[in-house]
């Protein structure tokens, strides 16, 4: 009986710990509204502090869009992102402007995805995490939980 309980507990443990990137609970109120309007409100751990600082400093021309966040809300979001940023050593340098999709981690995790999928109208862009990772907004990037069946493992 005791063994069964242990087996059940083991079964309930998430299998791929590294694929869980939760949004910190102390995200400022404006984060979802300001940054989650045109794309998913990415978890701060997906980019290094320096890259977030450059991203927030360049919002006037954010990938071709004026995404300026004025006043205290903008500063709150910037410091939230930098405080909770990912490990710069592991993520690597990402160029200008910084892109999550050019971090070493993203590239390594996606290198087996055939090029045609990035052009698929269901996906459209590497910015569209939720097209494949149904739990992305909740920080679940497990390769076992992919919406596009051909890409599931």
């Amino acid at each position, binding site marked *: 009986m005791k063994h069964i309980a242990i087996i059940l507990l083991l079964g309930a443990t998430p299998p791929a710990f590294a694929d869980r990137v939760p949004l910190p609970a102390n995200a400022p109120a404006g984060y979802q509204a300001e940054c989650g309007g*045109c794309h*998913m409100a990415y978890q701060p751990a997906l980019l290094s502090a320096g890259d977030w600082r450059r991203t927030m400093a360049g919002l006037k021309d954010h990938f*071709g*869009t*004026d995404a300026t966040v004025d006043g205290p809300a903008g500063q709150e979001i910037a410091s939230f992102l930098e405080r909770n940023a990912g490990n710069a050593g592991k993520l690597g340098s990402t160029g200008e402007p910084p892109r999550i999709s050019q971090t070493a981690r993203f590239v390594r995790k996606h290198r087996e995805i055939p090029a045609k999928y990035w052009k698929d109208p269901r996906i*459209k*862009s590497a*910015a*569209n995490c*939720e097209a494949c990772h149904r739990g992305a907004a909740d920080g679940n990037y497990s390769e076992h939980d992919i919406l596009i069946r051909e890409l599931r493992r």
Partner: protein
Amino acid sequence: MVRTLPALYLLLVSIAAQAETPQRIGETYAAEAAARQAGFTSSAKRGETLFRQRFANNDKMPACTSCHTDSPLNAGQHAVTGKAIRPLAVAANGQRFSDPAKVEKWFGRNCKEVIGRDCTPAEKADFVAYMSEAR
């Protein structure tokens, strides 16, 4: 019952203070437009024309329809990022045009991005009228 009524009243008042109706938001823009142009009344038909008009400002999103599809009753998709967008029409999405600050923010961003300039109060009033009436 007698004791819960004041509480219920307070609750309703506090909800009313936060949420606006599309009609009220449209009226506010229409009043602003009328101050500039005497006799202005909003028109859903003009709003629809604006919604469908193509502008030569942005290749990736030449019109509202680039992201919001040909029908505001449909869910859309961001033309660049691919993010899903809930329908614009009030009939399909009851949360639309209920928060004046949010409405103003998105007119601000999207008019600049698609048309290349701010929308006028008259355009905003017409647009809200169309989104309120679209069936």
